């Protein structure tokens, strides 16, 4: 008769386990279905939201829950409020379509807001037409992956960012597709995070914008057609690898704007058809290596306030101006780059040109000093001036030069 207690014990255990990880189905029939289900759920439960339209907003997730959408149920904020606010650690959200948050000048209305949490995963959601897409606030070790975030904002004032992170650490932003927001990805005081394989296009301000965000890695991202490209400011130990910056083309567009960035690495990126490839101001100790600058208006604009930057093994192809600078002092090093405008020779056949290359053209100096002189771009006179300056340099900064220009372009990708 010893088996009965064992049986009871087993049943109790099973019941406990069952109770600990229930799966709750939610259908759109009753009002406030999702919030109601969350209120009744226990920590560790899985909520499966069935396909349909849920007109719910300000859904507060204050338990450790797994929220899964079955075939992208639509949660619609009706243009008034926020949609989901997560205030508990280790929540998992996936498969939802979140749309139409409100717009407000008092609060930043977000489709998904993570507030003081860690270990939250937001995976594979569609966020359409929201002011802010995903908003991370003082959150750590969170993963935002495979989301499609899009909006169609018209002006900077009434719009928000696709993925917005503030005062967070150890984030992983991966495989997201962001378009039509103010800034695609916005980081402020975010450290030790990774932004990998995202696509950020047609945002009206920056594809990626970060400030005071140290020790972050950006790799394999694609930034296309953003109003002003990518801006990175006041950060240290930033690493950018293998990104593509394409067609950030406009009156004040940069592929990358670096302002007060130090000790960073920019490697193996492709800059194609941007107004300015890299614009640098007050930046030091940055390694710019193995990048390709192709068909840009300016390849690089280095302000005289930059020092100890190293430009090595890059390809400069078909840019209108390879390098421009605003001073005569140059504390940066250019070495072993390939310049398609180089017309020197290589007599000893060591594949390195025997005469140095001066990448700043005469006309680049003139227009840097007097922007209005741009009206004479491509006129016969300025072509002659550039040629004369090549023979007898007098205006161009003579210490900005590549002493070892390579004769053949580097095979970078």
């Amino acid at each position: 008769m010893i088996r009965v207690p064992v049986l009871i014990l087993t049943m109790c255990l099973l019941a406990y386990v069952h109770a600990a990880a229930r799966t709750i189905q939610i259908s759109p029939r009753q009002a406030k279905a999702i919030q109601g289900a969350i209120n009744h759920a226990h920590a560790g439960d899985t909520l499966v939201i069935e396909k349909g339209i849920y007109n719910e907003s300000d859904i507060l997730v204050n338990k450790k829950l797994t929220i899964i959408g079955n075939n992208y149920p639509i949660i619609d904020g009706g243009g008034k409020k926020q949609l989901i606010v997560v205030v508990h650690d280790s929540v998992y959200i996936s498969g939802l379509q979140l749309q139409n948050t409100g717009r407000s000048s008092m609060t930043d209305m977000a489709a998904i807001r993570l507030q003081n949490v860690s270990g939250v995963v937001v995976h594979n959601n569609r966020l359409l037409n929201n002011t802010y897409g995903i908003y991370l606030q003082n959150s750590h070790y969170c993963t935002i992956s495979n989301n499609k975030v899009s909006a169609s904002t018209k002006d900077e004032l009434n719009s928000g960012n696709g993925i917005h992170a503030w005062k967070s650490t150890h984030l992983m932003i991966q495989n997201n597709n962001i378009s039509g927001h103010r800034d695609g990805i916005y980081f402020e005081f975010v450290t030790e995070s990774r932004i990998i394989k995202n696509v950020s296009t047609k945002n009206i301000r920056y594809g990626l914008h970060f400030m005071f965000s140290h020790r972050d890695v950006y790799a394999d991202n694609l930034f296309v057609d953003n109003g002003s490209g990518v801006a990175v400011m006041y950060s240290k130990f930033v690493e950018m690898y293998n990104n593509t910056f394409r067609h950030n083309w406009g009156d004040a567009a940069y592929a990358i704007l670096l302002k007060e960035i130090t000790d960073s690495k920019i490697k193996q990126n492709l800059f194609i058809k941007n107004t300015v490839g890299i614009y640098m101001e007050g930046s030091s100790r940055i390694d710019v290596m193995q990048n390709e600058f192709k068909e840009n208006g300016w390849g690089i604009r280095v302000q005289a306030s930059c020092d100890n930057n190293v430009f090595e093994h890059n390809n400069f192809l078909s840019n209108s101006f390879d390098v421009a600078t605003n001073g005569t002092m140059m504390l940066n090093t250019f070495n072993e780059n390939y310049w398609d405008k180089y017309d020197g020779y290589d007599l000893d056949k060591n594949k390195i040109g025997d005469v140095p290359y001066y990448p700043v053209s005469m006309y680049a100096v003139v227009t840097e000093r007097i922007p209005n002189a741009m009206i004479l771009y491509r006129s016969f006179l300025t072509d002659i001036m550039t040629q004369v300056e090549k023979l007898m340099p007098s205006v161009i900064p003579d210490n900005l030069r590549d002493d070892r220009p390579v004769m053949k372009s580097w095979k970078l990708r």
Partner: protein
Amino acid sequence: MNTIVKYITLDLIKNKIIIIYTLLLGVISFSVLSIDSNSSKGLLSLLNITLLFVPIISILFATIYFFNSSEFIELLLSQPVKRKTVLLAEYSGLSTALCAAYAVGIGIPTIILTPSPAALVLLVSGLLLTLSFTALALLVFVLFKDKTKGIGASIIISLFLSLLFDGLLLIFIYSFGEYPIEKPILGIIALNPIDLARILMLLQLDVAVLMGYSGALFKKFLGSMAGSAYAIICMMLWVIVPLFLSVKIFRKKDL
């Protein structure tokens, strides 16, 4: 008038220099456009060639031609035809031939190899340049009696407009760089058909953004329809005003 135009045009189409000019332009444009994979780059090179060769060849050839046919003009004037008719007929015949040369040499290759609005603008601006520099040659012809002096004047005019003018403009921009001089610059540009043609063409290409980057007004104004219209109207004035002046002077000229 039509009869005179017809005879002059037919005479000029058989002219060796016109044929060589056409062939040269044709060869250059075919080679430039087929070598460069980037069509915008090819068009830029063709623009440079247009800006460099078309004005000087048009004005020199036209001046020499007018002076050489001065006896023919006197002969015609002994008949009961108006001076104005004869002069305008000379101009029309010559400009038709030169325009045809440009259209065949540059127009056909660009439209075949890179059909785009930019190619059309290149063609239009080249034709307008031809017309205005031929008109300037006519003005030179009525102003000077001596052929050598006339040719000298044409050389000076073409060098001034293609080289010296930009230099002076650059000095102007340099000295008044601190002031808001965008609008004066736009006015000054109108004084040079070569600059007008260059800007008209550049605004069709990607590099226009460089202009917007430094002087927003240039791009905003010149990039708009009004700006293109402004450039084209100014270039047309460069055809009409010299023509008008030369007719006026020629009427009273002692032959």
